[in-house]
């Protein structure tokens, strides 16, 4: 949703990563987009996955109202098991509220209990490389990304992962994001799915119901991860 507005840090790359890893396995993936001002979609609850990226404060304000008009559809989708992937701004807007750096409070969708408050000092942001350890179907996986957020998120009772390097939900925090089996809400840009192929496959598995996905040659991705993990976790 809102790829035009919520695409600040290369977040559209997440869709490209899903598309790529589906295509090489012969899995059909059809991408629909909803932009601000588009006619209302009736079929939100029929999607396998709903994706929201991150945007600037100004853009998040612009679309908040439109997004709220989808509260029921998104809530139904969540209940029906549609996978929800939400990065940064998308993550914040699914919580109870978001108070931005201009001290302006935006109501969130309230799908989850967490809430976010940003410092009014615009320079007070968590910025940098980040590694969190998440659990995907019981297996630990180091998820690499880049965080850049002014908001501090409180009340996430089911975090996406434990912060190994970087901040996470709050400055100097121990945990990052919010996760359910079919929900990943996180501050990680990168784009997230380009840096973490197993996470991408986890999502594809959940969306298609295919438990054993065909293995791909991930040597470039793995080498990229090795170098970064070695540098960031020393």
């Amino acid at each position, binding site marked *: 949703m809102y790829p035009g507005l919520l*695409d600040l840090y*290369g977040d*559209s790359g997440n869709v*490209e990563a899903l598309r790529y890893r589906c295509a090489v396995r012969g899995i059909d993936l059809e991408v629909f987009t909803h932009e601000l001002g588009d006619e209302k979609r009736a079929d939100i609850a029929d999607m396998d996955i709903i994706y929201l990226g991150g945007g600037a404060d100004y853009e998040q304000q612009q679309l908040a109202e439109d997004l709220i008009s989808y509260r029921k559809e998104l809530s139904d989708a969540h209940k029906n098991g549609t996978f929800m992937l939400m990065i940064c701004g998308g993550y914040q807007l699914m919580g109870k509220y978001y108070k931005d750096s201009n001290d302006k409070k935006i109501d969130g969708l309230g799908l989850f209990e967490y809430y976010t408050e940003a410092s009014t000092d615009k320079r007070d942001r968590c910025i940098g490389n980040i590694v969190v350890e998440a659990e995907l179907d019981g297996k630990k996986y180091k998820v690499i990304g880049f965080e850049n957020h002014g908001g501090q998120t409180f009340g996430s009772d089911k975090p996406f992962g434990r912060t190994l390097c970087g901040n996470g939900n709050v400055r100097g925090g121990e945990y990052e994001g919010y996760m359910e089996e079919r929900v990943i809400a996180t501050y990680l840009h990168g784009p997230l799915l380009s840096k973490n192929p197993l996470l991408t496959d986890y999502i594809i598995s959940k969306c298609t119901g295919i438990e054993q996905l065909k293995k791909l040659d991930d040597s470039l991705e793995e080498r990229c991860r090795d170098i970064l993990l070695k540098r960031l976790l020393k």
Partner: protein
Amino acid sequence: MKLPKLVLIAVGKLAAVACRLVGRDAGNFPGLALWTIDKSFLRCFSVDCPVIAVTGTNGKTSTTNYLNKIFSSLPNEKCVITNMQGNNLDTGIGSLLLHHCDMHGRIHADHLVLEVDESHVPVIFKYLKLETLVVLNFFRDQLDRNGEVETLILKVQKFLEHSDAQLVLNADDPNVVRLCPKGKKAHFFSVEKYEGATDELYEAGEGKFCPFCAAALEYEYYQYSHIGRFRCPRCGYGDVTPETQIKDIDFDNSCFKINGEAFTSKYMGIYHLYNLSAVYTAAKLYNIDSKLINDAFEDFQVNNGRMEVFRTSDAELLLNLAKNPVGANMTLRLLNQYKGEEQLLFVLNDNVADGLDVSWIWDINFSIFNNVTKVVTSGTRAYDIAVRIKYSGYDAQKIVPIPDLDAAAAEIFSTGGRKFAIANYTAVQPTRAALTRYITAKEAH
């Protein structure tokens, strides 16, 4: 306590001497030293000549260098001061002024032509009187360093509300046209629709919505990224008549026309033509003869990793700096325009000056990648750019990541023919050095 001007100037001059004694570049340190002592140190300088500044995300250095060349070629011109090496923050410009001022902080020159970082326009021209400001464009650039584009635009906009500088603005960038304060007349420049223009947005762009009424902007065409003939269907924002428009672009003969006069240029990339249009407009504000302008267009060469050519006996490589997606997309446009086979070298670093976040590479459009037989990637993030290119659908077998630059240079030159290279900010000088080392070693054999 504030130190008197004379003391500050003396301290700064000493810092510059110290730099040179220890063999360090004095391009930034002396200014930084003064800034540390006194944040308003720029107040020490007095300039008695016109100050022309160039700002915007891409093209500042080239545009500034053109203007320097043109002003320097004026018959009675004795001294034009310019930060040619791109030290464009307050500390860099402070260092430049320190170098040229007398012990009272006075600067005697005919023109000051300065490249200024977007975020530093208000800081610097709080103290120096600005006569002309050229604004080229606003793209997303090193977001983790510069903040959101919108914040930057607002900063410049706020400054301009209280400035009486004459404005030279890009008529085809919705992020720039809005800078003209209500009731003021700006000097707009433009380039007519060129053969590579598209009906749909082809590369990631900024400013999709009207800044005044928030309606989605409509485009007659896009030249590149979000630069094109735009208009707000609701409030009419964007209805401006350019004072300068480059017309009759002839890529085969590297020439074009402005106001009926013919010009020739070495560089004909669409983004470059916009820079030239800006240069012409600014120069004409100072009644400079078209012949002098054309001389600069014809001769100008930047050998600093911006469209720089490296040759071996059997290969030719064009290196171009790219600090952001738009810069990289420009080089890819040139690569795709080339009819034969070619190879690409992409050098990506993530040092502090680059911005630590490399996610911007995902805003580069690799979907068209005509006749590219091999991609070599290098730099501290060689594998990130390799993965990026792989996910665009390019055959991973043809991607060779080599973090070491000398090895990467040898790899790209292992075959002959046409090559293109893209390097980001801190990567560009090491890349030039590695390419030169390779070529020198090869010639010695």
